[in-house]
């Protein structure tokens, strides 16, 4: 195991509860090793985390109001992971994730209006209302989904990094410096696709970073009940010849610092990496989860170590934040999310012609082809395109 840094700053004492959830707590006890991070960056990340938190609270509310349907998995508690990781890589580095994806979309730069409208099933959504909560895609921001099947995104992540390398080296004759970030939950560790992807990444020198958002539970199953070597997940990476790291995912500054170093090393060596990112989801697996598999006491311990609260305390201690400036930030985030809900409410539902678009790129038969969503400057509803009646088009 390689533990790059750890930061007890402003963090509650490590408890038996931490040990119970993660199996080991070495990552919480290692001394902090961290470069100075400018206050402006810290402020931006604080706001990003607040935005995700407020956005998710509004999502839960909208779900209760039945504006959002289907499955909805909120990111509350894990904000430091998406924010710290995306800050640590370059915008050109592709990112792919699983179904708890709103946080990654917002951290990557998706306008929250398009994210919310997608969940509302509106044409203004990032996928014109065709993808839903679990399938956030953003071409302009190099976000390659939002994938609903556990572990499905792991071979895709290898493919994204493979493509970066192929394009820059085989096609352009240069040297690739991009890495791909592939997020997965700890539950995905037990899917075959993940192990195949790790083997391929190790074998082919693919610069993909697998970030396991280890929140201790795959749905209602505590990690040790479903995963061998739960206390030392990095041993799985070792089996594939891939460097493994343990990072405290509740500390955005630490996440950034560690991930920056890991990403730099992957760029340099063109090799994959595996990160056991220790985090915790404060809410249930999905909206229908009563959380009977864990205790209130355990939740209280982690909620006391809220990643937003931790950064807030750290910044106030360093003088980068005041009570007033924090309150102003909270207010501006609340207003932004309120506006985003109103915008999504006002966005029309996709027209019936959208049923048949985006099935194929090349038009044929009943399928008129595809268009970009409004978010990417496209014109949804394909004005001028003849809508073909499926039944009559067969001849």
């Amino acid at each position, binding site marked *: 195991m390689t533990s790059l840094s750890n930061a007890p700053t402003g963090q509650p004492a490590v408890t038996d509860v931490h040990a119970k959830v993660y199996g080991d707590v070495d990552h919480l006890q290692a001394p902090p090793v961290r470069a100075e991070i400018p206050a402006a960056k810290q402020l931006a990340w604080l706001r990003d985390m607040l935005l995700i938190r407020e956005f998710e609270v509004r999502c839960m509310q909208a779900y209760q109001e039945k504006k959002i349907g289907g499955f909805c998995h909120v990111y509350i508690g894990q904000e430091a992971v998406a924010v710290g990781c995306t800050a640590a890589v370059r915008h050109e580095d592709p990112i792919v994730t699983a179904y708890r994806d709103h946080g990654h979309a917002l951290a990557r730069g998706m306008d929250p209006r398009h994210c919310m409208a997608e969940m509302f099933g509106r044409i203004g959504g990032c996928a014109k209302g065709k993808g839903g909560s679990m399938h956030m895609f953003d071409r302009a921001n190099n976000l390659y989904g939002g994938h609903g099947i556990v572990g*499905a995104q792991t*071979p895709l992540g290898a493919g994204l990094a493979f493509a970066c390398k192929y394009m820059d080296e085989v096609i352009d004759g240069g040297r690739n410096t991009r890495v791909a970030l592939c997020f997965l939950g700890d539950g995905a560790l037990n899917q075959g696709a993940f192990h195949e992807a790790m*083997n391929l990444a190790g074998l082919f020198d693919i610069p993909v970073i697998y970030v396991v958002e280890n929140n201790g539970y795959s749905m209602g199953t505590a990690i040790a009940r479903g995963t061998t070597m739960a206390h030392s997940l990095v041993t799985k990476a070792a089996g594939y010849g891939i460097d493994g790291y343990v990072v405290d995912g509740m500390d955005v500054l630490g996440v950034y610092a560690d991930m920056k170093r890991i990403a730099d090393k992957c760029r340099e060596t063109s090799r994959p990496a595996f990160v056991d990112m220790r985090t915790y989801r404060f809410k249930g697996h999905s909206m229908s989860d009563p959380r009977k598999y864990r205790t209130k006491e355990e939740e209280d311990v982690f909620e006391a170590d809220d990643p937003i609260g931790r950064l807030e305390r750290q910044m106030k201690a360093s003088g980068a934040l005041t009570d007033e400036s924090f309150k102003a930030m909270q207010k501006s985030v609340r207003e932004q999310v309120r506006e985003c809900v109103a915008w999504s409410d006002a966005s029309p539902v996709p027209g019936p012609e959208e049923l048949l678009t985006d099935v194929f790129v090349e038009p044929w038969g009943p399928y008129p082809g595809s268009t970009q969503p409004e978010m990417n400057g496209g014109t949804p509803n394909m004005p001028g395109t003849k809508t073909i009646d499926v039944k009559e088009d067969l001849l």
Partner: protein
Amino acid sequence: MTAVREIEFRDALREAMSEEMRRDKRVFLLGEEVAQYNGAYKVSRGMLDEFGPRRIIDTPISESGFAGLAIGAAMMGLKPVVEFMSWSFSLVAADPILNNAPKMLYMSGGQFGCPVVFRGNDGAGGQLGSTHSWCVEGLYSNVPGVKIAIPSNPYDAKGLLKSSIRGDDPVFFLESERMLGNKGHVPEEEYVIPFGQAKVLREGTDCTVASWGRPVHFCMDAAEELAKQGISCEVIDLRTVRPLDIGTVVRSVRKTSTCVVVDQSWSFGSPGSELASQVHRHCFDDLDNYVHRVHTADVPTPYATNLEQDYLPNARRIAEAIRSATYNL
């Protein structure tokens, strides 16, 4: 007059891939034994020498992993060709090939297409037993968002594979290990064959016989035999089942008034049942008999030679169906 060039089916496939790889650097081939071994069935023979290991890539036996890798690469704009040694092995890659490739464009609201070609051997006939004899078109044609080509001869194989690689949508390209050594005319000049265009292989007046892939040859054998008995068959090779060129079949049935559909996949919920259903709908007033269907038997593929031959939609069973459909029993 120059001699007509005849090459094997496997050579036609290789020519298609090599020509497209010379034309477009985004195209690469990956799969089990495609590089150093020169292809389990020698389809990719010599390609490693020409294109090198960065573009002709040996993978471990890891279908879910490398199919998913190809899909990720395709989302970024590359054009992977994935060889499945057998489509039977694609079942362990069901999630990437069915849940990712065909749905990516739709789920992303038009943002990410998936221009990947999956190709390999499909179908029974080589005494490979039940697990290795899948006709996956029965399963996979059910899924919207993929195009499916099932060529019956080297000429079509080359032209269809080239258009598959050039296209922007995911393609399942189904070959047959039983046909890889078949020779046929393939001109030196470049050509592509668009999807969704059936070919009338034999004109006739009494019965329309529609098929695709290897059973097309059995249909031609049956038509030849029946011609001696005065039954004139029109044999149509659909070439692609998605898109399905229903128009060509309907025009033929309106002429012949009878139709036999021959499909080497199982009968329940198959491209054959879909085609028959569409013919019934469009030719309700033209048909003199219900559309007859010949499929593989509705059992797991047997190993014994005699049982496997009986299991297939062979010429004998096709001829029986044609006689029945045309009231010539």
